[in-house]
């Protein structure tokens, strides 16, 4: 097994708030290899975006991070703020959901990509702009020369997201974090953008962390999957194994809750209730209050344990197959 490009070990994030200490990420561990895509899946408030910001060093002031985050062997949490800033945009880059708010409306798209190249690769302004135009062509922006001279408001949503990807990839980062990169886009444009990320990953060996709520996207684009619930890892597995033999009741509920294109399902499997308040999380397994399989023992937090090779699940009931046999 090759050494991971990114490795998170027991990462926790805490914020002090008026109502007490909030811990949106509570002991997350995973690793991503070069040239592979790890998908982080979960619903609003599960901590997936906070995890991404912790890796990038973009958490707001006052956030306390525990655990370890290693990029290509280097412990990021031990770096000075200046050193971390130098890694951002160079060794690691991030693409956000809403490209309009990530681009500066006062500069042309080409200037903004060129700026990254000047800062991180030390290119002269003219060379940087020429390289930005090249990047536009690589992410298949039609008429790259002209588009590089456009301001963000003159570009469509899909085009803006291509500019963000061009900017993120301009410096050949070792790690790309894409946080819901296609959620704001139409389905035909989404398919183009995801295909582009896959292609560039294969070409340059970048490790990709793809944060999404869409299990269809995960099935098509991820090698490994981490399912998060209320700040913790519920299940972690190779994508094929997760879809073939999902083990955590939350994963099973999520798979059943998404309506399927081929139809034939009379009623969606809905997970009753809502996600817990993280200021007052339930004791033990945080999914237990919504879990149809819960036992008394679930008042204790189950460890993340291997059920199949490389397939870990945090559930006392796992593997659920024994339960099915008992019910049959």
């Amino acid at each position, binding site marked *: 097994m090759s050494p991971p490009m990114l490795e998170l070990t027991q990462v926790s994030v805490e914020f002090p708030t008026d109502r007490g200490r909030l811990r949106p990420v509570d002991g997350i561990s995973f690793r991503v290899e070069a040239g592979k895509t790890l998908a982080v899946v979960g*619903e*609003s408030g599960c901590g997936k975006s906070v995890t991404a910001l912790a890796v990038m060093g973009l958490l707001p002031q006052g956030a306390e991070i525990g655990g370890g985050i290693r990029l290509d062997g280097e412990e990021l949490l031990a770096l000075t703020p200046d050193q971390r800033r130098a890694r951002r945009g160079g060794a690691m880059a991030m693409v956000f959901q809403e490209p309009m708010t990530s681009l500066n409306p006062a500069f042309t798209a080409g200037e903004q990509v060129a700026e990254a190249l000047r800062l991180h690769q030390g290119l002269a302004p003219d060379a940087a702009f020429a390289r930005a135009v090249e990047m536009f062509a690589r992410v298949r922006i*039609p008429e790259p020369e002209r588009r590089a001279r456009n301001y963000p408001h003159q570009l*469509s*949503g*899909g*085009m803006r997201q291509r500019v963000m990807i061009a900017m993120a990839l301009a410096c050949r980062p070792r790690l790309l974090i894409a946080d819901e990169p296609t959620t704001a886009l*139409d*389905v*035909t*444009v*989404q*398919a*183009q953008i*995801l*295909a582009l990320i896959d292609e560039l990953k294969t070409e340059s060996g970048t490790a990709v962390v793809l944060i999404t*709520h*869409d*299990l*269809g*996207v*995960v*099935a*098509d*684009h991820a090698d490994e999957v981490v399912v998060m619930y209320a700040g913790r890892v519920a299940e972690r597995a190779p994508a094929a194994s997760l*879809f*073939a*033999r*999902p083990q955590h*009741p939350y994963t*099973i*509920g*999520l*798979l*059943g*809750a*998404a*309506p*399927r*294109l*081929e*139809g034939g*399902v009379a*009623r*969606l*499997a*809905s*997970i*009753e209730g*809502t996600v817990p308040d993280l200021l007052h999380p339930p004791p033990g397994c945080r999914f237990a209050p919504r879990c*149809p*399989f819960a036992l008394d023992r679930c008042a204790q937090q189950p460890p993340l344990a291997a059920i199949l090779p490389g397939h870990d699940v945090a559930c006392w009931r796992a593997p*659920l*197959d024994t*339960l*099915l046999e008992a*019910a049959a």
Partner: protein
Amino acid sequence: MTAPLLELRDLAKGFPVRDAIGRRRGAVRAVDGVSLAVPKGSVLAIVGESGCGKSTLGRLALRLIEPDSGQILFEGEDLRTLSPAALRARRRDMQLIFQDPFASLDPRMTVEQAVAEPLRLHRIVPRAQETQRVAELLSRVGLRPELARRWPHEFSGGQRQRIAIARALASQPKLIIGDEPVSALDVSVQAQVVNLLQDLIRELGLTFVLISHDLGVVRHIADRVAVMYLGRIVEEGATDAVFRTPRHPYTRALLAAVPGQGQGPAALLEGDIPSPIKPPSGCRFRTRCPHAQAICAEIPPPLAGAVHRAACHFQDSLPAAPAARETDAGGERLRRLQAYFTDQKQRTGELA
């Protein structure tokens, strides 16, 4: 086929486009000659990507915005010929649910006030019975009646959408138009609200128009589907027929682009939707269509066919669409495990 509750005939609406200093610079034909019929008690979905005109069409159907031309027949009566007073009275029969439950509820009204407003407006029940009726409506949408005194900000997105649904049901409408009613919700909450909508449609005999870009949700609840592209219907038919044997190249591309079908890289559509200010001549999809020929630039294809209609010159000679693979991820094991979620109330006892 039952008589349509709602029928749109050749409906059109344009919006002026102005430049930075307000000079008129042409018009967007947001809806351009749309004809559709919604049979009583059925669910019609209108699908398409941003800017295709689906939301405008929904508002036109309720005459919330004034069409430029065409007819809106509700139970056979043209809404465009009604006096303002008669239209207002008619409104109790038709309601709209929006995408964003954070924006559609007045933050200064309690849940009870929000749900009671349509009761009072349309004099549905005497004042004395209002509280009772609000409580019934809240339980109908799966909320505890005690929550009536609370304010919208105290609720999650899913709960707010339930409140919006209760408010829509208050006037006992015959028709509900839902404009992306579950798109802003997380998937587990979305499933709860989809199940609720299906129950309500069936139990109350509602006619429902679902405006959505989510083809999974559409497949799950619609009886018929209309696909829109740049202001026009390009395909319309029974949901099963449209999803299994799409006749328009745009519908095929749209279906192929939905992730998670296990087909690997689908034939991707190139480019973006053209500007609606200057739509392509002839067939509006021709600039992105892999099958386009000379005739497509000259003659707009009519929406042709009897029950399954499509607007494509070559709909009868297109290569067979790749059959949607029956991806049976997880199979029988997953289905049985999910059965615990579907009726977990009964199951709780069994497992304990």
